[in-house]
């Protein structure tokens, strides 16, 4: 009976979809509770955390399964699972951070919707990480984007925030318009919207030429907007500066992760010869368009521009925005390689980047809670006023620069290893030169903290124990993974397999 097969497939699909289902349930429950308990300060945050943790438990349990579900719309595989766990961890940390954010709760602002939207955005990113169909890609990107437009302008009385939100929504809408135009061209060329069907259509009918290039570039532009790759990065600094710090941190890690997940999956499943996977390690491009060069150019532009413009930033959020652009460039170097080792390095880098970047933003938030803004001048003498926080900041910044013995070094090392293995020597040289440039502006931050106005007798800032715990949660792994990184490499290595469809 055909129906029974369909039913059993559906049952499997629903089973595998459990983490996402829990997120949706959390979303609805939180919405109801928010209606009932209008004035509670942390209730919705607690509900969100509980939902996220439950979702995480199921996520970890299915980390080895690999299947196409919902008739090939989504493909669940270790690769997608890795990104989902990464996004989930980020979300949990962001929710915890938000609880301590002064800016968010200022003037008795209601924050119920804030946490609800974060959960909704997480759902969108989960879908994006496993999407195997361009419709799902579009829907997931929009689910995540529309939530993030609102979140970016959540502190709506602040002029900067509403401006950021407006810029975000305009750029976002245009780039998703471009992306679906590209999708429509791909659809016209191949007659299909599923990644693997696109692949088989391209193998059988040898599609190439200008139309494919334009369509591919448009889709890459749409995704590039999410990962803020140059030249699709224009919104990034403004939005990062204007949005609440927690949301800035969230966008810089989670939405980038989701973007990279779909970029790699789309490139690998659609544009590489799936019939030639006897040797899984060598990826053969279909057609005449050299996507590697396209990505390599994007990567070089992204890291170089990000680093150079970051040099003269004076606002910490903006500086970290450009730094996150530069990091997207480093991660793209891993994508350029387009082999399993490249994907492994991307995964390693991303995990490391999550920890250290969230840490840096956490410190920015803690200090902004005290000083009221994020101007780099306000960091003068912080080294003495808040010794522990500053020491953690130094660890995060050193890690962002990529110096041992921090996790950031392991990330850089993995990426350069991948690039050198495929003998893209020029790319590796550009990469290391960029990391030297980046040192200058990271050092600028702790120069202000420690070297300028370093007085022994200034006031000492007091912080709540919660912030200290969060800091330790982020700073310790930054050091540990720099010294003992076997688990990280193991996990990344086992997550590298991308499900290729049926």
């Amino acid at each position, binding site marked *: 009976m055909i129906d029974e097969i369909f039913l059993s497939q559906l049952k499997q699909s629903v089973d595998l979809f459990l983490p996402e289902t829990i997120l949706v349930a959390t979303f609805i429950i939180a919405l109801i509770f928010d209606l009932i308990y209008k004035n509670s300060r942390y209730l919705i945050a607690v509900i969100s955390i509980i939902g996220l943790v439950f979702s995480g438990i199921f996520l970890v349990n299915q980390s080895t399964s690999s299947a196409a579900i919902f008739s090939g719309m989504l493909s669940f595989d270790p690769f997608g699972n890795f990104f989902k766990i990464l996004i989930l961890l980020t979300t949990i940390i962001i929710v915890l951070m938000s609880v301590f954010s002064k800016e968010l709760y200022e003037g008795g602002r209601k924050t119920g919707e804030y946490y609800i939207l974060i959960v909704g955005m997480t759902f969108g990113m989960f879908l994006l990480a496993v999407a195997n169909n361009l*419709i799902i890609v579009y829907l997931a990107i929009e689910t995540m984007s529309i939530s993030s437009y609102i979140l970016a302008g959540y502190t709506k009385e*602040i002029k900067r925030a509403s401006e950021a939100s407006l810029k975000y929504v305009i750029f976002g809408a245009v780039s998703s318009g471009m992306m679906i135009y590209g999708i429509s061209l791909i659809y016209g060329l191949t007659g299909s919207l599923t990644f693997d069907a696109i692949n088989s259509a391209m193998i059988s009918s040898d599609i190439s030429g200008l139309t494919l290039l334009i369509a591919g570039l448009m889709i890459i532009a749409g995704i590039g907007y999410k990962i803020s790759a140059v030249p699709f990065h224009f919104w990034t600094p403004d939005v990062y500066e204007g949005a609440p710090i927690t949301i800035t941190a969230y966008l810089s890690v989670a939405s980038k992760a989701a973007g990279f997940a779909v970029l790699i999956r789309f490139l690998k499943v659609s544009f590489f010869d799936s019939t030639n996977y006897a040797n899984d390690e060598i990826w053969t491009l279909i057609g005449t368009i050299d996507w590697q060069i396209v990505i390599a150019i994007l990567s070089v532009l992204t890291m170089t521009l990000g680093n150079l413009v970051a040099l003269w930033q004076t606002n910490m959020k903006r500086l970290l925005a450009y730094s996150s652009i530069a990091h997207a460039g480093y991660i793209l170097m891993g994508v350029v390689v387009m082999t399993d080792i490249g994907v492994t390095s991307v995964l390693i880098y991303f995990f490391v980047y999550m920890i250290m970047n969230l840490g840096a933003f956490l410190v920015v938030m803690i200090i902004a809670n005290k000083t009221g803004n994020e101007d780099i001048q306000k960091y003068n003498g912080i080294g003495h006023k808040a010794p522990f926080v500053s020491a953690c900041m130094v660890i995060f910044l050193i890690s962002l620069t990529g110096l041992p013995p921090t996790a950031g070094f392991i990330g850089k090392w993995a990426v350069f290893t991948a690039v050198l293995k495929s003998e893209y020597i020029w790319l590796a040289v550009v990469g290391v030169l960029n990391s030297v440039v980046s040192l200058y502006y990271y050092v600028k931050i702790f120069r202000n903290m420690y070297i300028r106005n370093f007085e022994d007798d200034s006031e000492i800032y007091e912080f709540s124990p919660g912030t200290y715990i969060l800091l330790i949660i982020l700073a310790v792994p930054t050091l540990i993974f720099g010294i003992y990184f076997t688990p990280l490499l193991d996990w990344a290595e086992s997550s590298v397999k991308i499900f290729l469809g049926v």
Partner: protein
Amino acid sequence: MLIDVPQEYYLILSAMMFVIGSVGVLTRRNAIIIFMSIEIMLNSVNLTFVSFAAFMGDTAGQIFVFFVMAVAAAEAAVGLAIVLALFRNKKTIYVDEVSLMKW
């Protein structure tokens, strides 16, 4: 009936609409008009999808169009709400006057 018109015509029309929309986004300064231009871009995409779907006898393209329409509505709602918030703050909806942050 639909097939009587060659497919190129649909595609050229939709490409023209897409370009008109893009140019509108790039040149106009009024946020509302920018959103309208974006709608034109999205509609050109819809046209492409529908024509491809019709000519290939495949339904996926038409389904995509429904989603695009729904999402466009949501996006417009959020966009207009943001424009409203901005207007309360700055008493303007002209994007070139929204320039607290540069570089």
